[in-house]
């Protein structure tokens, strides 16, 4: 019988000893954490997408509380999130512009294929193959869908050999922007129409040979734009989102029908 009590005493003592040790060390090694960090984190989306530029939602929340990071970086949480964080941090809620991804290529199957590629069906690998991939256009979308795989929100899909973004689903986390080996994906303001879906900076004649869809750099859009919002840089038309009034004249003048503006506002054309 004494044996049992001895066992109880020894193990109990051991447990109590370790408990005491842990209690002491929890005081000694106490790290003060700001309770606001958890509150801020609950305002964020929790997808850990990394679109804010921090390692994850909790890292961003810590950066807001401790380093005073800007509070409008969480695109998935949107304006609601900004309001919540502003209330916790006691700062003014800033208006945030929702940004969505946009693929600067409309080639896909319309672009010529220069050789049969039988390698790994992955853009990053294919982009390292001879000539930067199987398409004749060295700038365009390879269509293997690495961005589709990278997207956590199911906003991307491959349509006719080129990646397409569903702006309703896109949360602007930039996962695809970082994945695309051709650097084709940009963030544009949500609802913005008529960005130029091409990245080919070759001269028009060369572009015409490799792709039925590419921008030739013909300057027609630039000439007719009443708002000075579209310019040809390096044989490629680039739109200035801040100046564009959505008048749609560039979409009409483009000989390649490259610019797509279904909701153009014709009345804005007069203010030249």
């Amino acid at each position: 019988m004494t044996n049992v009590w001895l066992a109880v005493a020894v193990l109990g003592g051991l447990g109590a000893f370790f408990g005491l040790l842990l209690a002491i060390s929890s005081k000694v090694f106490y790290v003060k954490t700001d309770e606001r960090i958890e509150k801020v984190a609950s305002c964020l989306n929790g997808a850990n997408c990394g679109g804010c530029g921090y390692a994850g939602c909790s890292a961003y929340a810590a950066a807001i509380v401790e380093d005073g990071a800007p509070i409008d970086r969480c695109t998935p949480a949107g304006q609601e999130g900004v309001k919540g964080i502003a209330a916790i941090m006691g700062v003014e809620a800033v208006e945030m512009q929702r940004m969505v991804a946009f693929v600067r290529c409309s080639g896909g199957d319309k672009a010529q294929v220069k050789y049969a590629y039988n390698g790994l069906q992955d853009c990053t690998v294919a982009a390292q193959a001879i000539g930067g991939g199987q398409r004749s256009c060295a700038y365009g979308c390879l269509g293997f869908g690495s961005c589709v795989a990278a997207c956590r929100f199911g906003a991307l899909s491959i349509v006719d050999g080129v990646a397409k973004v569903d702006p309703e689903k896109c949360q602007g986390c930039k996962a695809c922007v970082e994945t695309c080996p051709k650097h084709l994906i940009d963030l544009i303001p949500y609802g913005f129409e008529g960005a130029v879906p091409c990245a080919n900076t070759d001269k028009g004649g060369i572009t015409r040979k490799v792709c039925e869809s590419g921008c030739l750099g013909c300057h027609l859009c630039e000439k007719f734009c009443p708002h000075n919002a579209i310019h040809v840089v390096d044989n490629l038309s680039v739109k200035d989102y801040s100046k564009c009034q959505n008048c749609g004249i560039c979409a009409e003048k483009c000989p390649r029908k490259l610019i797509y503006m279904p909701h153009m506002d014709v009345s804005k054309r007069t203010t030249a």
Partner: protein
Amino acid sequence: MSLTGIVSIALGAILIENFIFSQFLGICPFLGVSRKVDTALGMGLAVTFVMALASVFCWLVNTLLLVPLNLTYMQTVAYILVIAALVQFVEMFLKKSIPGLYQALGIYLPLITTNCAVLGVVLLNTQKNYDFLSSLVYGVTGGIGFLVAIVLFASVRERLDLTADCPRSFEGFPIALISAGLLALAFMGFSGLKVF
């Protein structure tokens, strides 16, 4: 304790009697944390660290407390207590002193408490009547064996995810289990290895 003995224990723990591939201990983190090489490396290092510490402390508890008091039948319970307390302590210590490592290990650190490879190493130490140095060596090298196994397996799984043309019904976990089995078979090749 001779050098030959140490080398023999080390090679035994890493290759011949690898904790995962031939003793089948610690399978849970082995399958759970082997999706990426980075996290597998972190987990492996954390396990090595805890295994080494647990070997030392459990040896002390056993030789100074349990054996003199004829309480060796309480070994398992006492060891669990020691390991749990140890992991808690290590977590607190890291959080305060090396926050970088604490962040990197994340959730895996507390998970080690329930890792049977850690309990296995201390029980085997007792079973084999190892002295202090041998226990320490067995703990460290057992951890290294775990590290080697989990990193190898994570690299295999990364490649499986990326390149393998795997039948749909085998995708994900089934093919991981199959490749784990194949890796274990490969490690069987070491069983003929004799040291000195």
